[in-house]
Structures are given as C-alpha cells and as structure tokens.
C-alpha cells in the first residue's frame, strides 16, 4: 500500500542527506518561572524510531509539544534549537511554522476523543488536513485521498465512513483517524504523545503495530512518548529516559532493558510488573474456606426500556475472606457495572448477591463492602478536607463522636502511609498516589470485610503503582480483607491475585488460580488478552518494527 502514498516531489522538499533529519539541541522549556524541560538533546535520522519514557512530570509531553512549538499557554522555549533538516523550528516565524506543521512534522495526541472535532465529520476533518498544505486540489480528489488515508490506517469500509462523526467510532478507530490526519501530507517526522493510553491492551497493540508499520514501510521517523516502558520497548529502536525535565539515560532499547546504567532507569524497570512473574498473593494471605461474598446470575442493563443494552449478562462469582480475586476485562466488559452492583450503588435487574449467607441489602453493603475508585481526582470531593472525606462514612454510619472520629481518621491515615496532619488539608494538595491512599483510607473507615478496587492503579505511574499495590497487600495481611481487584493489566492482576476471573461481554468466560489462567489459558479470549500484553524481555524489544 506504499504506492498509495505519493511522496512530495523532490523539488520542494529534498530528503535530508544527513542521518540527522531532526536534531534537538539543548532544548529548554519553562512555564513562567517553573522549568519543565532542561537541556534535552537528541538526533533522529530518517526512518528511525525514538521512544521517550518517563513518569508524570518528567517533561516528556512538554518536550513533544515543544518539537512543533505548540506549548500550552504560559509555556515558552527558553533555549536550544529544534532543527528539522537544519531549519530551526524554535526560531521560525508563525506563518512559516504553519507550513511545516502537519506537512513535514506531524503529531498524534493522547486522547483521541477530545482531540477530534466532535461536530465535524471525519471526512471534513481529513479534508481540512489535506487542504491545509500543498495548494488547492479538486474536492473529489481530496475526498478520494481522505478515503485512502482511512483505508491506510485500517478503518474498515473507509469510503462509507467519511460522513460519520468521531463519536460514532470506537476508541481505537478514533486513534487510527488521528494517525490518518497526521499522515495526510506524509510528514517526515511523526510525534506520538501517549498514543495508546486509555486504550484496551488489544487495541493498544493494534495501534502500536500501525505506527511501527508506518515507520517501517514509509520510512517516517517516529517519536513515541509514553509512561509505559512496554509500549515503547516494542516500537522503538532507541530510548530516552526522562525525569524531572532532564534526560537521565539514552541508548538502544535492548541495551537499556538488559543493562540499565542509571539508578532511576533500574528502579523504573523494577517497578514494571512482569506477566511472567508468578503471583505473590499466596505469600500474602490464605483465603478462608467458606465464600464470604457469593454472586449468582447477576444481570444489569442500561438505556431506555425499548433498546436496553445489557452491561452484565449473567455473572457468577465467589469471593472468600482474605482472598484477592482479580477480575480482568476490557472496557465495555461490564466490570465497573459489576463493581457498582456489589457496593449497592445500583440494584441489579436479576440475580442475587449474598454476604456471609444472607442476601446483601443496601444498608449492610455500605458497611461491609467498600470501594476504591480508579480516578484519584474525581473520586475525592474537592470541597472537603481529607479529614472530612475519610470521616464521612463514619458520620454516615454514626460511628463515635467528633473526637473519636478524629482519632480514627488519624489512625487510618497512618495505616495508609500518610501523616495524620494530612487530615486538615485539601485533597488538591496531594499527588495521585497519595490521593489513592486517601481513597483507600476512606474505604477502610467503616471497617469493611470486602474491598472492591476498580482499576485502582491504572491512573498511576508505575513506581506509584507498586507502592499502592504493596499497600493493598499489607492491608489485606493486617485486616484479612477480601479484595476484588478489577483491572485490565493482566501482569498487575496476576501479581496480586489468588484467583483470576476473565469478564467478557458481561459474562465470566474463565476463572481459576492466577498462575494457571496466565500460563495456560482455556478460553481463546484470555489467550488474546495475554498476547496483547507488551513484554519487556530484550528478546521482544522492537519486535513490532
């Protein structure tokens, strides 16, 4: 399909003789006084692929945006140069820069939903991208080209879908469309900022494949920014590790994975959960014999009476005291619905939930079954102090008086590894990981015996992930909690769970001991999931290229 793409005639754009298509020199970026990026320096040859990895706040995304000089308001390039074919973009006047953007260097953004214009049809948006450069071309020709591009990025029945709007596509397809836009003028450099975050593993893999193929077949130089080493390891030949706005280590992917030199790189690698590592749950606690929570034939559907769309078909589950049950499923599998049903947030349409023998009514559920949420920001009321947030359940259940509650709050904060003084502060003042700890403390307040964790770590950096997971393990050890650990990342799930259940289209398609499910899956879907997990073994590094 390479033939489909007409490379721009040599005249108006000589391919660079040097290996250095893109040369970044001592790049520095600051927001007001705060320095975000300092002395970043790298070169990229045509057809090369470079990964920039780092945790939140490391300045990787800022670097990416700085490449096209598209920093958010307040941000400015304080020094250095971004040379594309020897032409310094950092110094280019706005109009000239516009001519470069999208034509010679293009970008793929993180969140495809918000990055696509909701009220313009995909065809229109592609058309916009096409007419942005290279003179006026007849409408028909542009339309044909738009269809080609959609085809190229693997959107089925491309021609028919030009009239559709972003919200009518799946997450993965939207990201493909983003890529198609970036390819409109067959740019020499493609910068992808967190291209697969918030996508399901299987989809993520497809997108990465696509990027790799573009890089391979079209010789487009690729810069991939991600917090996920796995993602980068498989798509990029070279790696850049950033931290606090600086590059701490650089080199060939394989080498970096096997022999990291910088301590930070090492800790980063260590923190990444490996799928091949066996479950640690057994060493943590031994589940009781009698199931504590028994779910039978649970079903729930949404939407208006006529066209109800089922979220849960029929789910059977057993959760034993002291046990961690890992629940794996992709978006739309109904895992969140299940979680909400368990904590009594909404009543199921059919089926039963029984707790220690008796059916679980709302009141009881709110004491015995508590929940840890995915989003550590949205799940804490910004108007309350940490203390109040944690005390709320106590107040709701009329536990103790003011003083006693304060004492309890302090105790809980200690328990989750925060200082008691945190109680007086506002949740805003805390980082994601700390907020998640606060969330956990709140969940523990009414002394539940079951903890439902809905993607508790997926929004956190790997190092923080590890900390939170350890915390949960410790709490289970100390309190003998039964934990339902819902996540899409199989590696994490295997690490923490005694047993794993795989949820697909509202049904449990497979469940069994954690290690068994991972090593010898019985259901094809499980196998598919496993295959999608990016691995860090040097063997597979750059495997997609």
């Amino acid at each position, binding site marked *: 399909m390479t033939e489909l793409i007409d490379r721009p005639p040599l005249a108006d754009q000589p391919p660079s003789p040097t290996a250095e298509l893109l040369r970044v020199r001592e790049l520095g970026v600051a927001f007001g006084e705060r320095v975000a990026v300092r002395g970043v320096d790298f070169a990229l040859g045509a057809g090369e692929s470079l990964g920039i990895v780092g945790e939140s706040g490391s300045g990787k995304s800022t670097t990416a945006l700085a490449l096209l000089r598209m920093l958010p308001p307040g941000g400015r390039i304080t020094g250095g140069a971004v040379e594309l074919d020897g032409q310094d973009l950092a110094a280019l006047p706005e109009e000239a820069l516009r001519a470069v953007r999208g034509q010679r260097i293009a970008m793929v953004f993180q969140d495809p939903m918000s990055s696509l214009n909701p009220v313009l049809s995909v065809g229109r948006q592609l058309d916009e991208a096409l007419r942005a450069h290279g003179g006026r071309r007849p409408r028909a020709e542009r339309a044909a080209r738009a269809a080609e591009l959609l085809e190229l990025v693997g959107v089925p029945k491309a021609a028919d879908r030009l009239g559709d709007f972003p919200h009518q596509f799946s997450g993965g397809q939207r990201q493909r469309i983003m890529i198609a836009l970036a390819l409109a003028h067959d740019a020499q450099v493609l910068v992808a900022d967190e291209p697969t975050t918030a996508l399901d593993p299987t989809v993520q893999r497809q997108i990465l494949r696509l990027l790799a193929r573009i890089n391979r077949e079209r010789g487009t130089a690729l810069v991939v920014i991600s917090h996920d080493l796995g993602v980068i390891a498989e798509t990029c030949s070279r790696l850049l590790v950033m931290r606090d706005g600086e590059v701490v280590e650089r080199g060939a992917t394989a080498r970096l994975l096997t022999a990291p030199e910088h301590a930070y790189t090492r800790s980063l690698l260590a923190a990444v959960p490996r799928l091949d590592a066996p479950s640690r749950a057994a060493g943590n606690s031994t589940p009781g014999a009698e199931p504590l929570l028994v779910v039978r034939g649970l079903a729930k559907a949404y939407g208006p009476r006529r066209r109800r769309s089922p979220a849960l078909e029929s789910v059977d589950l057993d959760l034993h005291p002291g046990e961690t049950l890992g629940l794996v499923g992709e978006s739309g599998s109904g895992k969140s619905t299940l979680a909400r049903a368990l904590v009594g947030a909404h009543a199921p349409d059919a089926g039963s939930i029984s707790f220690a023998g008796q059916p679980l009514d709302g009141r009881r559920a709110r004491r015995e079954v508590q929940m840890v949420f995915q989003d550590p920001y949205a799940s804490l009321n910004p108007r309350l102090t940490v203390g109040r947030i944690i005390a709320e359940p106590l107040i709701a259940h009329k536990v103790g008086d003011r003083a006693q509650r304060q004492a309890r709050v302090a105790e809980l904060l200690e328990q989750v590894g925060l*200082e008691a003084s945190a109680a007086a502060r506002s949740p805003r003042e805390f980082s994601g990981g700390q907020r998640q700890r606060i969330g956990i403390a709140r969940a523990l307040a009414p002394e539940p015996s079951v903890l439902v964790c809905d993607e508790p770590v997926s929004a956190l950096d790997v190092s923080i992930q590890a900390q939170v997971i350890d915390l949960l393990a410790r709490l289970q050890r100390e309190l003998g909690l039964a934990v339902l650990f819902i996540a899409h990342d199989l590696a994490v799930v295997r690490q923490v769970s005694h047993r794993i259940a795989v949820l697909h289209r509202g049904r449990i398609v497979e469940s069994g001991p954690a290690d068994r499910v991972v090593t010898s899956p019985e259901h094809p879907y499980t196998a598919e999931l496993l295959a999608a997990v990016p691995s860090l073994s040097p063997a597979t590094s750059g495997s997609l290229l």
Partner: protein
Amino acid sequence: MTTISLPPAARSRSGNRSRNRYVAGLRTWRGVTGLVLVGTVALAGLLAPWLTGADPDAQGPQALAAPSGAHPLGTDDIGRDLLSRVLHGILTDLSIILTAVPAGALTGAALALLAGTSRAADLVVQRLFDLVLSFPGLILGLAVTAILGPGRWPVVIIIALAEVPYFGRQLRAGVLVQREREYALAARVGGAGRARVLLRHVLPNAVDPLVVQGAVALSAGVFIEGALSFLGLGVRPPEPTLGSLISGSVAYLDTHPVLAAPLAVTTALVLGFTLLAEALNRGART
C-alpha cells in the same frame, strides 16, 4: 513524604478550586472596575444622609431649576432636590434588588434541589420554570402590580419571580453533572443517604455558577425596577427610585441635560454588576 507534582492531564480534571479562582477573577481589570463602580454608587447611596442635607421629598417653588449651591444637580419637575433624590434612590434600588435577588436565588435553588429528588418532581419543576420564562417579564409585572397594586413589595416579588427560573435551571444543570461525579458515588458507597449526598456533596460543588448568575440578576433587577417605574407600576411615590427618576426625567433630557444624572448613575451601577459578572465568569473558566 514524597509529593509528586500532578500530571498535567489530571490538573484540568482536579476539582474546581472555585473560591480563589473567583477571587482571581475579581483581580482582573474587569473585576476591579466593576467593584469600584458598584462600590462608589452603593457608598454614595449609603452615605446619602451625610452627602446631602436636602430632604428628597421636600418640594420647592422652583421646578426644573438649574444646578445651584442649594441644589447641586438642580431640581426635578415638582421642585425637589435632584441630588438628594438620586442618592436616596440608589438606596431604595439597592434595598430592593438585595432582597429580591437572594429571594429568587433561594427559591430557584430550592426548586432545583426538589427536582433532584425524583423524576416526577424534576418534570414538574422544569415545566414550572418554562411557565415563568414563557411569560414576558414585563407582562408578569403588569399582572402582579395590577393585582397587588404598585409598591415596593410587588417590585421585589416581580424581580425575584423573574430570576427564579434562571437560578433554578442553572443549579439543576450543575446538580445533574455533579451527581454523576465519582465522589458522589463514593459518598453513597460510604453510606451517606440521598439527601446527604445531594446537600453535603453535590450542592456545594454545583453552586458556583450561581455566583455569576447573581451578578447578572442584580443588574437585571435594576432594569426591571426601572421598566416598572417607566410603566407607572414601580415603587410608591414619593419614594425615589432610580427607575422612577429616569422615567421622570426622560421628557426633559434634551432641554435639561443635567437630568441625565439618574441615568448616568443607573448605567454606572448596571455596568458595574455586568463587569463583575464577566470577571467572575472568566475567573471560573481559567
């Protein structure tokens, strides 16, 4: 303990740091100008008794007199000191809008919360808002004053009534958004009852936009009072209000330019409120 700065993606989502953002909004040139305008006018009204010795209702032989030592702004058509009437008029207007707007806001909010309790209630309340909105404000005024007779309270009632649906709708929308937020669910899971979640968790987070609406409503209040006086449905004479002063002076605007004073004051006041609304609005957005 290790604190890691929030990832930029998250910052936007992190809870609305409303209070200080509104303060920040007020610090912009808009906010300051607005505050100054409103402040000056309000102060002038409050200090009326000290700023002028003249009794606003005392009538003299010479009508429509030009400005003089005795009457800095001259006199109106029945020989009353204009300055003193303007100053006292400000006071009347402020007292009216400052009772009417909060009343309207509270009623609206109460209805919005009521709507939050059940589907049926929501339906009824929405239709109620529609009903009020569908009556052109002044028609409402015409009717209410015709029933109660002109006076201060009818004016207050009309302004409040006219504002109820705006506050109500806004809060309702906010509640609908906020109660889908995870923290609301968290509160439910934590064992809080519906009412508690609505009042303690959702409401405080949904109430912010009303601040802006409040500023808008205040300026609207001044206008409604004016329009009512213009149609002869305003506050009982001889009590001066900005509206009655304006409608009393329009006839002479071309012959006695100084009579534009009440208009100028009203404009300043409304301008102030509008600027404040804009400032707060922008503050909330950034």
